[in-house]
Every structure is written in C-alpha cells, then in structure tokens.
C-alpha cells in the first residue's frame, strides 16, 4: 500500500482548483436559462474556466439537460458529449468539468434545475445520504467494491437507480494525481486531455501491477481497501427522467478519509435546508 503522497500545500492547491471549478459552474448556472443548448452551456463553462486561468483540462466540460441528466437512452460514448438539447422550463441539468492548473486537477459535477421540479428537489435532498454513506464506508476501510455495493443498496432502498453504471467502466470514481506529464496542454483526444491520458495510462499500469485499480467500480478490480491519495467520487442517481450527481475530491490518508472541502454549493444547500427545517 503506497503512503499518502501529498503535503498540506498540495491539498490547498487541489482545494483551490476545486473551488474555482465550482465557482465557474455556479456562474454558468446563474447565466443558464430556457432556450440555451448543451453546447452553448459547455462553451460558456469553458470560457469561464479559461478566464479564471485554466490552460488544460483533465477532460472536456460536459453539460446534460432533461432526461440526459439521467443518461437515459445512452448507448454510445459519443452521447456523453454536449449536444443540441435545448433547456426548457422545469428541466434539470448537470454540468461537469475537470480543469487542470499547474498539474493540480479538480473534477466536479454540479446539478441544477430551471423552474419547478419536485423530483429534482427530492433527489437533490437525498444526495446527501450518499455523500455521508461513502465517507463512512471508506473510513471503515471497506473494500471499494463493497462501498459501491452499499451505494447500490441505498439506491434500491430510495427507489432510485444507479446512473454511474452508465459511465465507461461503470465507475463511481477515479483516482486523481498530480499531473506531471509533458504533452501539449489544452489538446484533447476523445474528450480527455493528452496529458491526462499520459498520466492515466501510467497510473493504470502501475496500479494494475500492484493489484489495485485507479478506477473505482463494483467489480473484481475494486476488491481492495481504498488507496491513499485523492479520489474524484461521483455518485450519480436517477429517477425516471431526472438525474443528479455531485463530484468532488475525497482525501484518503493512511488511517482516515475526509472530503477535501465542505464549502461547496450542494453542501451549503443541505446546511440551509437543515437550518430551515
């Protein structure tokens, strides 16, 4: 088992990039309105990130509207890319981006809605359960595959379905490392930055040799205790045509685990709801 590879300064940098990402997502969420297409939303998100000083992306930004937030009718990986879907009143949306600054990567997911949507409200409230559950299970150092199964069991109890299983490899999360590759910044292949692919490829080989996986799913490759380091975790839940997720960095140290930052839009929203209750 490798030792926890980051110091406080690294963590502060990661936190800073994650804050920046969520800040941009919030700006786009405030800008978004009925009539906007997914492509326009991703372009705005990218503009916003570049303006904030981002030069490279772990993967290109995504935006999904309406039933695409629940990944309904997704059959090919190309369908993950932003399309021409137009936002209308009452629709949910999800923004997803992964900027890299000085090699420090964030990977975030932001769910929102325009107008009234009772299903979204319930899903957004319940999403907290998954954030708490994942942390609890990882702290208990359960094998990642078991944590995945616990999330699935909770989804069944809630009556929702597991939308992260639609992601390539059915992953609920992936390891994030400091990007040290030398490839050209800002160039991407199949939606992933060239530097990302280099780093990811190297990690994949290294971890596989150790019997672990940098990708976190429900299968055999994830039957090991959480690897110390940073994990971008994205439980994605859906009910009928509404999907919602958060994605943020989980810090796994040798003995403990915690979410990198609690000052995030969804966490603030839950706190407000609890205060109101």
């Amino acid at each position: 088992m490798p030792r926890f590879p980051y110091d406080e300064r690294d963590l502060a940098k990661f936190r800073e990039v994650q804050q920046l990402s969520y800040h941009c997502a919030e700006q786009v969420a405030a800008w978004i309105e009925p009539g906007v297409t997914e492509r326009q939303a991703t372009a705005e998100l990218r503009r916003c990130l570049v303006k904030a000083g981002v030069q490279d992306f772990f993967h290109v930004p995504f935006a999904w509207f309406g039933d695409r937030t629940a990944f309904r009718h997704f059959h090919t990986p190309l369908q993950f890319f932003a399309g021409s879907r137009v936002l209308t009143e009452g629709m949910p949306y999800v923004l997803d981006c992964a900027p890299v600054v000085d090699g420090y990567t964030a990977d975030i997911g932001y769910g929102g809605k325009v107008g009234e949507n009772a299903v979204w409200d319930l899903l957004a409230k319940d999403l907290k359960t998954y954030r708490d559950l994942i942390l609890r299970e990882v702290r208990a150092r359960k094998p990642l595959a078991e944590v995945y199964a616990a999330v699935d069991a909770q989804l069944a109890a809630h009556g929702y379905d597991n939308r992260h299983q639609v992601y390539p490899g059915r992953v609920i999360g992936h390891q994030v490392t400091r990007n040290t590759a030398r490839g050209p910044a800002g160039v991407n292949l199949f939606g992933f930055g060239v530097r990302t692919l280099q780093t990811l490829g190297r990690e994949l080989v290294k971890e596989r040799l150790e019997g672990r996986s940098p990708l976190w799913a429900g299968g055999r490759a994830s039957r090991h205790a959480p690897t110390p380091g940073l994990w971008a975790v994205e439980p994605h839940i859906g009910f009928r045509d509404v999907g919602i997720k958060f994605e943020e960095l989980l810090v796994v140290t040798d003995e403990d685990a915690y979410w990198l930052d609690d000052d995030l839009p969804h966490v603030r929203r839950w706190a407000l709801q609890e205060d109101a209750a």
Partner: protein
Amino acid sequence: MTGRRTDTRRRTVDSGGLALAVYEQGDPADPTVVLVHGYPDDHSVWDDVAADLAADHHVVRYDTRGSGASGVPATREDYRLELLGEDLFAVADAVSPDRPVHVVAHDWGSVQSWEAVTTPGAYRRIASYTTMSGPCLDHMGYWIRHRLRRPTPRHLSQLLRQGAHSWYIALFQLPVLAPAAWKLGLARLWPRVLRDLEAVRPRPGHPQATLAEDAVHGIELYRANMRPRVRAPRERHTEVPVQLITLQRDHYVSDFLSEGLERWVPRLTRRTLNATHWSALLEQGPTVAALVRDFTARDHGAARQEPSTAGELVVVTGGGSGIGRATALAFADAGARVVVCDRDLPAAQRTAELCELSGTKAAAYRVDVSDGAAVDAFAQQVATEHGVPDVVVNNAGIGHSGTFLQTTEDEWRRVLDVNLWGVIHGCRAFGRLMVDRGTGGHLVNLASAAAYLPAKQLAAYATSKSAVFMLSDCLRAELAPHRIGVSTICPGIVNTNITRTTTFSGLDDDALAAKQAKVSKLYARRGFPPEKVAAEILRAVRTRKPVVPVTFEAKAARLLGRLSPALLRKAARINAG
C-alpha cells in the same frame, strides 16, 4: 340555500343560423357545467343531475339540433359532427364568455362533445370533460382498425360483441323503416322499454312530449356521421382532462371500447358506475353529479394536477420494494390514489413519497399480510380513511428454496403463511368490501411461473404460488357477477430484492449469504426490471385479463406445460436453484 337561483332560465343561442334552446340553473358566478344529452332524449334527461349540481354550479343544458325546442336542420349534411361541435362552442361562448366550461355528456351528446373536446385549442374553452356511453367516432375507427389488423381471438370477440350491441346502428341506416318504427308505436312504448330493459322507473314528464319527432330527426345523426368517421378516422388528440364513466350494464357501449384511450387522452381518469345506459341519469342522478363535482373541483389548470382526493384507489401489499413499489408508482403515474403496505414501514413510506411525486395522494401502513386479523383491520382502516379500493394488488411474497424433504415444518409454514395466506387474507378482506360496495373492482394476485413449473428445489414456494393460481381461478368465477375482476400474474425471473431475502433450506448463515448473492447476481444478469411487470399489471387491470405470464420464460413454460406436461415433470428433476 338562500339567495340561490334554482329556477330554470331559458334563452336562445344562435349557432350558424340555427336556434338552440338553452336552459340555465344556478348562480352564473359559479363554475359553468354544460350538460349535453343523447339520442333520443332532450335536455330533460338531465333533470336530476342538473338539480343536484345547481347547488354549487352554473348548470347549462341545451336541446341539441333537431331535438326538443331547438331548430331542426334542413338537410342531412347539417347533422355533421363538425357542426354539432360548433353548437357546443356557441353555447359555451354565450353562457360563459370569460371562463372555460366543464362539459358533461351522455350517448350522442358524448359523441358530439368529443368532436369539440378534440378540436385543437379546445382546452381554452373546455376546462374538463366527463363522458358517458359515447365514444369519439374517430377513436372508434382506430379501435376497429387495430383489431382488424391484429385479429387475435380476444380482438375478434370484442369486434363481434360490440357489433352485436350496435345492431340498431345498421337498422338506422335503412330508409323508411326506422322512422316508421318510431312513429308507429316505439315512441309510445318507450317508457316500457326503459322500465323493462333499462331498470328505469316511469315518471311524469319523461320521456319528453316531442320524443317521436326528436327520435326521427335524430336518426340523421347516425346517417350523417357513422360511416364517414369510422371508415376514415382522423387523429384526434386532446389536452383537456377527461373523466370517462363506464356504465357497467350498458347494453349499447361496451367497456372494452375505451381500451387504449390513453393514446388520445393523456389526462384520463377512469370511473365505473353500476348502471344501465339510461339508469345512470334517470335513477342515479346524484351519484353522477357527485362524480362530476369531484372532477370539476380539481385544479386542471396546473401543469401537474394537485394531489386529488378523487381518482381510482389502489392498494398494493408488499409495496416497499420490487414489483410492489414499481406497481404503486405505475398506478400513481396513471393518476390513481395509492395505499401501500409492507412489513417494513419506512420502505412503504418511501414508496408513498415517490408516488406523490406523480401528483397523487399516497399513504403507507405497516401490515404483516400473514396475520389475518391485521389484514382485516387494515382493510377497515383503508375503507374509513380512503374509501373502498378499486384495485387491490396482493403482491407481498417471500422466496424459499429447498427440496420437499429438506424443507422444515417451520419453513413450510412461513412460506405458506405469507405467499398463500397473505393472498387469502387480502382477497377476503378487500373482496368483501368491493362486493358490499357493489360497483365492481379488481383483484390482482401475484403468483409466479413456479405456479405451473414444478422444480424439486422450490417445493414450498411453487406449492404456495400454485395455490394462489388456483384460488384466483375459483375467485374469478365467484366474483364475476359482482363485476370484480381477478388477475393472476406470473412474472418469471425479475430483478428484485426477493432473491436477496430468499431463504434456502439447510444452509448456515455464511453459505446462505453467498447463495443469496449468487442468485441475486443471476437475476440481475437476466435484467428484467420490475417496472415492466408493473406495466403488465396495469394492462391486466385495464383489460381484465385473467392470467398474465410476463417474461419470456414464464410464457414459454406455460406453453410447454400445455404441450407436454410430462416434459415439465421430467425437467422438475433438474438440480436448479
């Protein structure tokens, strides 16, 4: 009620040059309800319903063209549906120019109101539509086409039965004969016809004095419209919320004529009434008025309807997960009020919470279906708090695997208590309530493909499900006269948590958990979702289908069992499960 205007006011409305006699009751400030009569009636057929509704509605009736005190069109062409639809709009515009009206219609009144309701943009003038005994002729055209294209035995029997009910339509196409029949005595005999065939008590002032002429003029309705519409139907959709009241003892319009109506009417509420074609209006006026009042009181203006206290009431046992939860959600989505029960109360409450997302009312209770007294108490509680259910889905069940000799007495008892006694208790408690209420209903019992597919590893489970299958067959025969349908559902391999709680004879805890995980994985890999079973259950209720094998394997086993029972008996020896 003081200050109420209960007298009838009369006015004349011009519709394309034809004078229509319009009668108003009640306070014009109240919501307006327009009542449209059928053939061979005039507005007086609504007397009881109008008197009841006038207490809190502005009630408007009119004599349709060619009947009562209204003008008589000169040619057959003037009886076309388009003009009849315009009549309704003309009356609505005259009596309620600022607000959309609620329309309630019967027989031919319903046929012509469908024309108005399915006119594009009708929702601006019509707030809701309650229809009895009169289909949209265009929908009927498609209904017939669909059955001719897929001539299954069921479809053919429906066509023949509806054809037999519609004998008079063919008769009406004959020249001379039909008018002569009315003139030569049928009009005089009409009160007796209503008494003997329709269970309507004669009363003074009804039928109307102009019956003979009205009936003769009205024949043109059939001649001008039936053939062209049924031969070349048009696609007629509507956004208007529609309440369909099916009259169970209707001699002219069969209940299956409304199968698939949801295709044209997304906001459809179905109700049934134990009445004949005319007794609904002439004997059960207040009941019809109550149904109309329920429906007009709903907030139809909202994009999604507010939780309503009207609508079908559905009870689902074992509704906390799997097929039960999916079924509850599917009924809620179709606009029904849902009551779920489960041994696990939080799970049942969760289902209720999800049901309410569809904009309907839902409630959850903790009930162990194997406890007869508890089920009786539950049924009474449901009847008191929500009313007698229209549909009860006896879904609760547990899995158990083990050969006959491996299965202990306790295990046998547990499986039979839940799977068989649970269904018996449910059918007894709710069946009794439905029979006493007297307006029909439907019981759905969840059996299994194991009911007719012997397997040595499923001795107790298959026995319990087979008993459910047989009890449903017997019960169906018993409840048929009460118009209560019974459906037996045989799902097959469906991905639910029954496998995660299935017990296995003779295994310790660890081996049990491993076995459960293995079987769950197998069921998950089969990937048949409970939502598809729920859709089949809804269809079974709508079409009153007696036995429904759901998955391919359930259908195949049923077929195989009929072709070669010996083969299934041999296959039962295979060590599976």
